[in-house]
């Protein structure tokens, strides 16, 4: 009984991590860009939604819809102006630049919003739940999980059913030859980052409504997102979902044994998967 609940809560938590990770996975998969600012960008998105909610009195879901185009434009511009210059074989430039960005975002938000804990209010939804047989499932966690699922299905559709998706994959395979097809790799990358920022905004909605956030909490969640991406396998979005779920379930199961092991269990699951499958569960090209 308790174990079923533990697993279900773990899967739902995994949905949250997968949602955090999906944008990262997209960017990592297409341009091998390790974005250390991803966690802070989610926090930035949450603040944007918060501002829209408080300033315009919008419902958080509506506010997210308003935030999405803004964040898309931000991602697009960021990639075009800064991140494209860092791409290449060497992994250090993107690492350092996005780390710098992470510091800039965190401290910029601190200046703008102070260190106060904030939360986006989702009203009665916050504590609503649905009884599902022996377990009770919170509506927000469920929505989070379903959103993660929807994001991953949508990204897969985009990837495998559209001409833009073909261009993404081609550029990711071989940017030089993609250029010979008339694809501008820099613009394609900018669009990809823009889309990743849309996913970031959706993640921000759930980060902001789930619990408190403040300008400094980004990095703590980043590592789980990275773990999900890596054990999922480079470029596999379903893998990212699976990776998120593995970490989520490992955490709740670890906690059920003893809360001391909760976070450790997630990391250990990550290391175990890597020891067995260094390229992740579903590496591209298999």
């Amino acid at each position: 009984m308790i174990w079923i609940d533990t697993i279900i809560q773990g899967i739902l938590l995994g949905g949250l991590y997968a949602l955090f990770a999906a944008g990262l996975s997209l960017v990592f998969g297409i341009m091998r860009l390790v974005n250390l600012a991803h966690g802070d960008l989610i926090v930035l998105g949450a603040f944007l939604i918060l501002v829209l909610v408080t300033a315009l009195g919008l419902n958080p879901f509506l506010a997210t819809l308003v935030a999405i185009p803004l964040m898309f434009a931000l991602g697009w511009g960021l990639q075009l102006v800064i991140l494209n210059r860092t791409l290449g074989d060497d992994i250090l430039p993107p690492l350092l630049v996005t780390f710098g960005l992470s510091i800039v975002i965190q401290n910029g938000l601190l200046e703008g919003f102070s260190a106060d804990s904030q939360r986006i209010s989702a009203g009665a939804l916050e504590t609503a739940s649905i009884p599902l047989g022996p377990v009770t499932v919170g509506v927000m966690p469920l929505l989070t999980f379903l959103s993660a699922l929807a994001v991953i299905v949508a990204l897969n559709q985009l990837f495998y059913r559209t001409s833009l998706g073909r261009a993404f994959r081609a550029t990711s395979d071989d940017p030089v030859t993609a250029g010979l097809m008339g694809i501008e790799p820099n613009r394609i990358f900018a669009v990809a980052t823009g889309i990743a920022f849309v996913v970031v905004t959706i993640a921000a909605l759930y980060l902001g409504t789930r619990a408190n956030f403040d300008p400094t909490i980004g990095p703590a969640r980043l590592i789980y997102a990275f773990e999900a991406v890596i054990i999922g396998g480079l470029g596999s979005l379903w893998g990212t979902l699976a990776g998120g779920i593995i970490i989520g379930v490992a955490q709740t199961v670890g906690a059920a044994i003893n809360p001391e092991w909760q976070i450790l269990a997630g990391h250990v699951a990550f290391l175990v998967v890597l020891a067995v499958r260094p390229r992740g569960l579903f590496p591209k090209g298999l």
Partner: protein
Amino acid sequence: MAFLETRALTASYGDFQALFGVDIALEAGETIAIIGANGAGKTTLLRSITGILRNGADQVLFDGKPIGTASPPEIVRHGIAMVPEGRRLFPSLTVEENLLIGRYGRKAEGLWNLDTVYDLFPVLRQRRNSPGTALSGGQQQMVAIGRALMSNPRVLLCDEISLGLAPVIIRDIYAAFPRIRQSGAAIVVVEQDIGQALKVADRVYCMMEGRVTLSGKPADLSRDAIHNAYFGTA
């Protein structure tokens, strides 16, 4: 004025200079061949034309316009398409997707579309849903050519399309050339297979160590002259 022209074209990879003032000219509808030993700079020449290597603006002219500083996608929009050395199919795309992506940057109307490419290389129609890299080398080369044709180019650059192919397959591929010429495209073939090159080309340029050492009509070139141009004189 020639249709596509390079003037005193130079190119380097870092410290290493690969081209030293190359002049070639291509007339509309014409097919030229560029031959030369390994490392002579043939691929480098094509990479310069397609904008992968950037040059001085006036070092490459197309229709009289300087395009030396244009990026590869801009070159594609001008109507210059390339079949790159080593085929370079996109491994995560199927055969059909590989073909479709050829239209991404230039959706010009013309003879070539999925159907006509499949007519040209019927075997591809059967394999349309396999990953491009699961094909045999010859079939991959067909995809690479088809992919370039999908943009209905005005100039088609082919880099060593017979490389690594069995003689029969090379025959099949070159058998497609007359149809490509009929569609109006001018063609540059880079070949090490001199016999093949001489057969399809209207004119031939021979390169050695980054320079053009010989040019002319196939019929006018003697074996010895080609040999000298290839390896230098003793």
